[in-house]
């Protein structure tokens, strides 16, 4: 026990309780911690929104000129892709909660899919979103809007860019969560917890994007 630094050891003291989940009567610490962290992430995005409204308030003419370059229907379609990916993610969570890591039937039998298949689908939709963002960046760039072109460019690339980085981090998290189901012999409660908190993050990033989309593309 000499190398044990924390209150609880790697071995289980109570075999009735799955490791990594605590007693059933206690809230899941990982989930609570993730939500508290996400609320601080909200403050990070509050800074970005505040930046948007400050620059908009001091440079209304720039806004009128630059927002004409935005391709609203294209961004709306991209937004829809991200929102749908959240639905697939939630279906994967239901499977994770039921303890089904992978499909029980054939690949085309969608009803038999496990967490892994739904998360792969979420990953694909998320990557389409990021790819769509990159394409939009290239169009904005060819219209002469870059990070250092003017205040609008700074605002546009910083807000959407930081969000895009969050989505990319979420995609990496999905890969790690999917990877764990391959390296472990059994699907444990701890793995399901990982899958669930990753979905919290994904839904959060999705909701933030809806707010960013409404601010940048609809409100202008």
């Amino acid at each position: 026990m000499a190398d044990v630094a924390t209150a609880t050891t790697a071995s289980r003291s109570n075999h009735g309780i799955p490791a990594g989940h605590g007693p059933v009567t206690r809230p899941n610490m990982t989930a609570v911690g993730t939500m508290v962290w996400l609320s601080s992430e909200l403050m990070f995005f509050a800074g970005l929104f505040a930046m948007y409204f400050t620059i908009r308030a001091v440079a209304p003419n720039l806004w009128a000129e630059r927002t004409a370059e935005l391709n609203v229907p294209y961004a709306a379609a991209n937004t829809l892709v991200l929102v749908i990916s959240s639905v697939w993610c939630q279906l994967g969570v239901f499977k994770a909660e039921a303890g089904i890591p992978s499909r029980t039937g054939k690949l085309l039998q969608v009803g038999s899919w496990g967490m892994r298949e739904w998360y792969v689908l979420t990953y694909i939709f998320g990557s389409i979103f990021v790819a769509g963002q990159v394409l939009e960046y290239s169009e904005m760039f060819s219209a002469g809007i870059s990070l250092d072109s003017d205040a609008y460019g700074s605002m546009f690339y910083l807000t959407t860019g930081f969000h895009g980085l969050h989505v990319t981090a979420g995609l990496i998290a999905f890969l790690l969560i999917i990877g764990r189901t391959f390296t472990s012999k059994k699907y444990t409660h701890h793995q399901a917890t990982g899958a669930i908190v990753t979905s919290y993050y994904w839904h959060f990033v999705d909701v933030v994007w809806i707010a960013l989309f409404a601010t940048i593309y609809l409100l202008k």
Partner: protein
Amino acid sequence: MKTEAKLFVFIGLFAVTMAVIYGIFTAQSPQGLEPVGLVALILTAGLGIMCGFFFWWTGRKTDLRPDDDPDGDIAAIEGDYGFFSPHSWWPLFLGAACGLVMFGAAVGWWLVILAMPLLVLAVIGWTFEYFKGEDAI
């Protein structure tokens, strides 16, 4: 979890109230509505309500804890809280790799490219440490 939920919802409601007052007062000022503080206050409300709602929702799914009992004893909350890594080198490696990437962003992008594989290695090592084979937690 009722106490925690109430505490955070209170933060949220306080921020909403302040946002309304702030909005009304700045709208009447000569400079017009000030959006930055308004956005910050509304999202602070989001911070409180998001946590508060989650705690309420979690509390509904779990039994009452010893913490919820006003006459509860400290000893009642003993037991297994979950899995904690007894020791691991990965967080140190991960932190060093992140530090190198950030350092690279400050001094030159070539260092970021060199540090990235280290970061990838550290992230994989860290997340997979206890999820291998039969011993997976």
